């Protein structure tokens, strides 16, 4: 028998989920509009804005750059995060606590400040645009790999690694042959999150992109600011969403849904 409280909670949940999901659904729906402006309900479906998206040079190159940047930064960030997690997995004490806080700090540090700070540093040392963006996204993405691998590595039975070493394997061989095969689901889900964060990242890219070197989210932002909300933006957004859906689906097949909902 549902109480008044539980009915209210169910209603609040329905409203909240609608407010969270509807704006995203509207964007996807708008992308398939046949007309110049989005009409609701739509008069039909067409692919014209997707074709327009790939015809625009700046959109296409921003998309390509975003994919390259996300692939490269997620890979570097995950490798570094994994190293940090393996270092800290079996360590306690003050220094380990400080290091652990440092490794997750970029998660809560206001990224807009990191963006300004890196811009000033790059201007002083003369950093090329792409490398600068790449390093920024490595900093922002590293905590994800660090956390997921740390959770996997702490759940590991230490006797497995000891067995490897007592059988004569060096630390590197033990890492590659024993530890990595056991923690790779953590590594993969960390990589997924680092990729997703880089692919949608705004606050450092806002300052660190340059003329001709722009990421897709920043291209969408400047298009909206200076050319208004044309439907090619809906198509660009839908492509952003589609790539994430595909990636999450692939990783879910490999490591399972529970790991993804936990990894955040």
């Amino acid at each position, binding site marked *: 028998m549902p109480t008044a409280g539980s009915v209210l909670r169910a209603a609040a949940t329905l409203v909240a989920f609608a407010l969270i999901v509807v704006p995203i659904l509207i964007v996807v729906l708008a992308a398939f509009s046949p007309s110049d402006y989005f009409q609701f309900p739509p008069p039909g479906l067409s692919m014209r804005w997707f074709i327009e998206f790939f015809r625009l040079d700046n959109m296409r190159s921003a998309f390509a750059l975003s994919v390259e940047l996300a692939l490269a930064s997620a890979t570097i960030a995950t490798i570094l995060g994994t190293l*940090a997690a393996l270092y800290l997995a079996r360590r306690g004490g003050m220094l380990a606590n400080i290091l652990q806080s440092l490794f997750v700090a970029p998660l809560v540090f206001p990224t807009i400040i990191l963006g300004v700070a890196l811009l000033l540093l790059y201007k002083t040392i003369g950093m090329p645009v792409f490398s600068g963006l790449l390093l920024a996204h490595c900093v922002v993405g590293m905590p994800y790999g660090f956390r997921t691998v740390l959770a996997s590595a702490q759940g590991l039975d230490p006797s497995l690694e000891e067995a490897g070493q007592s059988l004569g394997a060096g630390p590197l061989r033990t890492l590659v042959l024993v530890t990595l095969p056991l923690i790779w689901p953590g590594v993969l889900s960390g990589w997924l999150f680092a990729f997703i964060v880089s692919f949608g990242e705004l606050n450092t890219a806002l300052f660190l992109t340059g003329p001709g070197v722009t990421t897709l989210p920043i291209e969408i932002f400047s298009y909206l600011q200076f050319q208004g909300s044309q439907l090619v933006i809906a198509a660009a957004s839908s492509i952003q969403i589609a790539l994430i859906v595909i990636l999450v689906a692939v990783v879910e097949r490999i490591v399972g849904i529970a790991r993804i909902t936990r990894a955040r």
Partner: protein
Amino acid sequence: MRSAWRWFLLAPPLALLLVFFVVPVVYLFWVSLHAGSTSELYGASLTLRNYTALVGDSFYLTIIGRTLAIAAVILGLCLVIGYPVAYFVAMLPPRRRMLATLVLLFPLMVSNVVRAYGWVALLERRGVVNTTLHDLGLLDAPLALLYTPSAVVVALMTILLPYMVISIANTLAGLDRRYLEAAQALGASPVRTFLHVTLPLSAPGIASGTLLVFLLTLSAYVTITLVGGPRSKLLVSMIYDSVTAFQWPRAAALAFVLLVLALAFTAGMLALLRPGRVQGSAR
């Protein structure tokens, strides 16, 4: 050999964070302590003027006040809406709870510029809300919904709400039900059980949700600009404007004001909610 191996693990990630996270933030602070310069990034003389000018300027104080007010409203709404939703999600059977978490998690993976654009498409003059109301005969002239502080609040609140719901739901789902049964067995009403048992035990989730929502609100330049328009300026917009005007020391000082607000809020929240006092709270 063993210590060489340890360094091999620690050195690369530590180097990345030191060189591209710690050093730039320290450098930013150093720049904020200098006068502006037309030819260089910053002038030669050390000064506190960038900070004293902010405190003495009612324009900046108004903007800081407005930033805090908007953040407070967003936070309040996220708590009031997020808590019952989190409670509902936490009480679902495990499979459905996982599904609900995934529905909440997915929007967080979509870029905020896309989610803000969704709100622009809904609220603009020829947007979904206006045209639908018009077609239903409820509206003669389109309402000016976009570029208002309320639009910023609604858009940012819904963009950040999943963080609050997931944080609280995680804590509630891990709660030992025997505490609630004990309270009820001892004769406490549902309201009393909630106020004296459930709510205090969910402090860790409330703390992490509150911190995430507040800190992300402070940084949300793109959402604020797209939905709030050129006139609803917040602290983060002033940072961006100073950067585009090449006023580096001022931008740096404003960034540090934002950082101090973030740190003060974090410290205040942790002292108020003391999430660590709840036993067995991993998060």
